[in-house]
Structure formats: C-alpha cells, structure tokens
C-alpha cells in the first residue's frame, strides 16, 4: 500500500523574537501560544497519535512524563485548549493530500508564463551571473521580433482557458534589445481581445540603459519591474561592475529611485543578490530602504560551491542569524512608520495559494518556460544552455514531452526531504534548478537553500504574529 502511513502530523514549534509559534502544517493553521502550551503540545502529540483525547487522561499523562513548572490547573487548562484545537481540525491534522497526487500527476497542464530571453548579452559583467554575462554558456544573441512573436503565439495557443498570461522580458540585459520589447508588448496587446487574454509583462533590468522614454513605456505597460541592485555601494560595485571593472552603483541608483517614485512605490522590486562577501546582508536591505525603496528583494546567490563568493554550509548559522536580525529591524521600521516590504518575508496567510498551487510548485517545465533568443524552449531560465533540458522550439512546439512529464511529477511528495518538512507548503519543494545543480536531479532539494528558506518562513510568520499583536 502506498498510502498506509497514517497520522503523519507535521507540527513545527519554534521561538522567535519572544513569540512561541506552533504550525500545524497539514491544515495550514498557525498558533501563537504561551509557555505552558508550548511545552504541552509535544507531549500531547504522542498521546493524540495513539488516539487518546480524553482531557483527564492526557493531562495526567502530560504531568507524568515531564515535570512541568506549572500548576495542575494550569496544565489542565492548557491541555483542554490543545485538545479543542485538535477537535476543530487546527492541530494534529493528518496529511490528506498525498492520495490525490496520482490524479495530480495526470492533470492537464497549460502554459501560462514565458521568460523571454530578449538579449543574451549584457553591458555589465556581474561575477555571479548564472547567465555568464548574458551568454548562458552559448553565444551572444538578440531575440528577433519574429521569434518573440512566435513565442507569444505559442503561449496563447497553449494556455487553454487561462486568462492571465505572464511574460517576463529577461536577459542578459533586455534593454539592449528595447525596440523588440516594445514591439512584442504591442503585439501581445493585439492578441488580448480576440483571444480573451490579459498579458502581464515584467521587465528585469540592470538599469544601465534606463532613460525617460523607457520609464514612461514601462510604467504604461509593465505590471512589474525588477531592478537589479545588491545594496551598499561597495557590495554592489564589487559584484556588478562594467566590463572595464568600474562600478555601476552611482549610475543606476538615481534611475532606480526615479522608477520607484514614478510607480508610486508599487509594482516593482529592487532585487539584490547576497554572497559570501556580504553575509551581513541585512545591512544591504537597510541600505536599500534608506535609499527610499519600499519593495525589496535580496536573495542568496546561486553558485558553483567552488566559487569564492558561494555560500557554504558552515555559513548557515551566520545567515540564519542575519535573517532574524533583519526581521526585527523591519518590524522596528514598521512601527516607526517607515515600513518596507521584503520579498522573502512576504507571506499571505489569509489569501495565500490553494493546495493545488502549493503542490505544483513554481511550474517550471510545465506552466512556465524560458525562450532563448533563437526560440528554443527550456524548463526555466536557470536551465537555459543545458542541452539535456532542451524541450523544443517556437516553430515545432514541445518535442520532449518526457521532460515535461518529469517536471509535472515534481512535487513535495516526490521529494523525500520535503515530506516531513514544515515548510513544504510554503516553498512547494523549492527550486528544481537548484536541486539539479546540487544533486543532479530535480527531485531532490538544495540543502543550504532549504535551511535559509525555513528560516525565512519562520521570520515571516513571526512578523505576522507581531503585527497581529499590534492590531489588538
């Protein structure tokens, strides 16, 4: 029997910034508890697993198996509340999703997002670039309008009844092929009404070529703009120099500030990468906030472990501490009325994704494809250049349905490391490319990334708990 494993509760308890937090992963419930309940829950869990839910029996057993520094009345009251949560389906809930995974694997998927590699070329020489200065292990190239047009046609034709379609203009540096971006936006708009579609365009740029004309167009047409900047000047310039070696910080900061203001501080991100060179990355987030940016994303570098700037396992404690520090700092700023949105601490508890989405993960290779300048399809931008993952092209469509099927089956239950992980419904099994780069297959997990992800989820929930306190 494949699904005989009963009573797989996933309870995660942790303390952060003075909050005791208990996550019941299978129901999605999150509780902020006092010290008694925090101690009682792991003891009660064992009994509930055995089917014992009687208040007096559980209380006696809890008191017998551990000397708690609370009175009998207090323990009994705490146990009573714990059992009530269990009765309400908010604690000790079982995993009911796994049996559905077979039907899930057979689901009909549609393509709803494309990452268009408008330019495999770049005017910066960022040291950590997974695109290798825009070239992606290949040749320099710009996407022609014809190729882009075919890609958009493919998207519309393969999107079934999905209305919202996403197209990211990515690179290299997409502003090096700006006319084609503009022409493709116009073409995409012309497809909307006849096909009942709505395009959401995103532009990712290093800012070097940004000017008023581009900004005006982007503000009219781009649902989101991602602006690459790493933080403090010395950090940014070290990793994001021009090809001649000089830094790009001074050129781009005023431009990015203008972009942020002109978009009313919404629907954009300044997006940085932190490396082993700046493990005090909270300082970079603070710096970006001090520059006036309200939408900030600063993320761990993805790099060959042999690179001197790559994050190492031994760095994990320091990095986790840094996230904790950042969470406290962001709460402080929020209370002072200077709040910013940090992408990796965003968590939508009330209106977050459904289970189907949480199971399907990022959608790479199925709902989401990357398109090279010459029209080849890959499962996502991070696989571009790896011929093993070449899926097809804009002329012939998807030729390697076997690879697509492999991505379709990639979910939290296909990954042994994810099964019992408390973060599985928040990260959805993590990044397939990171798993592949780390272990040579997409159904594993990038362990260092997992540790950071788990901490980010913990911090994000702690922030929610603190904000809920504030609301009272």
């Amino acid at each position, binding site marked *: 029997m494949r699904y005989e494993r009963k009573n797989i509760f996933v309870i995660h308890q942790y303390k952060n910034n003075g909050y005791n937090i208990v996550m019941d992963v299978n129901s999605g419930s999150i509780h902020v508890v006092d010290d008694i309940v925090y101690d009682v829950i792991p003891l009660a869990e064992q009994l509930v697993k055995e089917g014992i839910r009687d208040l007096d029996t559980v209380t006696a057993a809890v008191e017998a198996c551990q000397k708690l520094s609370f009175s009998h009345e207090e323990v009994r009251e705490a146990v009573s509340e714990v059992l009530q949560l269990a009765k309400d389906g908010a604690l000790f809930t079982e995993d009911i999703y796994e049996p559905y995974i077979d039907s899930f694997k057979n689901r009909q998927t549609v393509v709803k997002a494309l990452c268009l590699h408008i330019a495999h070329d770049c005017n910066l020489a960022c040291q950590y670039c997974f695109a290798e200065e825009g070239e992606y292990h290949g040749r320099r190239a710009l996407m022609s309008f014809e190729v882009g047009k075919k890609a958009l046609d493919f998207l519309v034709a393969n999107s079934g009844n999905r209305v919202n379609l996403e197209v990211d203009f990515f690179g290299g540096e997409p502003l090096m092929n700006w006319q084609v971006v503009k022409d493709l936006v116009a073409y995409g708009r012309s497809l909307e009404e006849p096909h009942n579609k709505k395009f959401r365009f995103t532009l990712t740029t290093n800012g070097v070529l940004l000017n008023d004309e581009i900004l005006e167009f982007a503000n009219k047409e781009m649902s989101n703009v991602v602006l690459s900047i790493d933080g403090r000047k010395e950090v940014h310039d070290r990793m994001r120099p021009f090809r001649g070696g000089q830094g790009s910080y001074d050129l781009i900061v005023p431009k990015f500030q203008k972009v942020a203001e002109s978009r009313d501080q919404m629907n954009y991100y300044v997006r940085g990468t932190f490396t082993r060179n700046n493990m005090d990355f909270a300082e970079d987030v603070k710096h970006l906030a001090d520059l006036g940016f309200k939408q900030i994303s600063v993320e761990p570098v993805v790099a060959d472990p042999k690179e001197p700037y790559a994050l190492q396992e031994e760095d994990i404690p320091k990095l986790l501490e840094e996230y904790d520090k950042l969470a406290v700092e962001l709460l402080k700023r929020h209370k002072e009325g200077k709040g910013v949105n940090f992408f990796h601490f*965003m968590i939508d*508890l*009330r209106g977050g994704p459904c289970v189907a989405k949480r199971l399907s993960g*990022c959608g790479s290779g199925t709902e989401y494809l990357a398109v090279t300048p010459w029209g080849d399809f890959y499962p996502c931008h991070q696989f571009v250049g790896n011929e093993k993952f070449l899926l097809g092209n804009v002329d012939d469509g998807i030729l390697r349905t076997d690879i697509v099927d492999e991505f379709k089956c990639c979910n939290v239950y296909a990954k042994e490391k994810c099964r019992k992980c408390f973060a599985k419904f928040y990260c959805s099994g993590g990044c397939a490319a990171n798993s592949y780069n780390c272990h040579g297959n997409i159904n594993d997990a990038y362990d260092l990334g997992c540790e950071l992800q788990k901490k980010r989820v913990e911090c994000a929930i702690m922030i929610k708990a603190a904000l809920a306190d504030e609301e009272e």
Partner: protein
Amino acid sequence: MKHIKTLTTRNLKESMKKGGCGECQTSCQSACKTSCTVGNQSCEKAK
C-alpha cells in the same frame, strides 16, 4: 482561548475543493528567479 491565539489562515483542506484554477502568478515571475517562493503569493480569487 486563554493560552492560544490562532492567526487567521487559509484552510488548506477547504482550498482543495475550490482551488486549482491556475490564474495565479507563476512564482518565478515576481522577483526571485533563483528560489521557489509560493507561500508568499496571493490567490487570484482571494484578491
């Protein structure tokens, strides 16, 4: 409850019944591009 405060969360079990419309954002399209972040996204129907 005296000892427990429950944060308001989406009931995952319930979301099985009505979920899966697929209109939500693809996670890598937002800002990340190097890590999978799904829990921070919003359901298109809940907006």
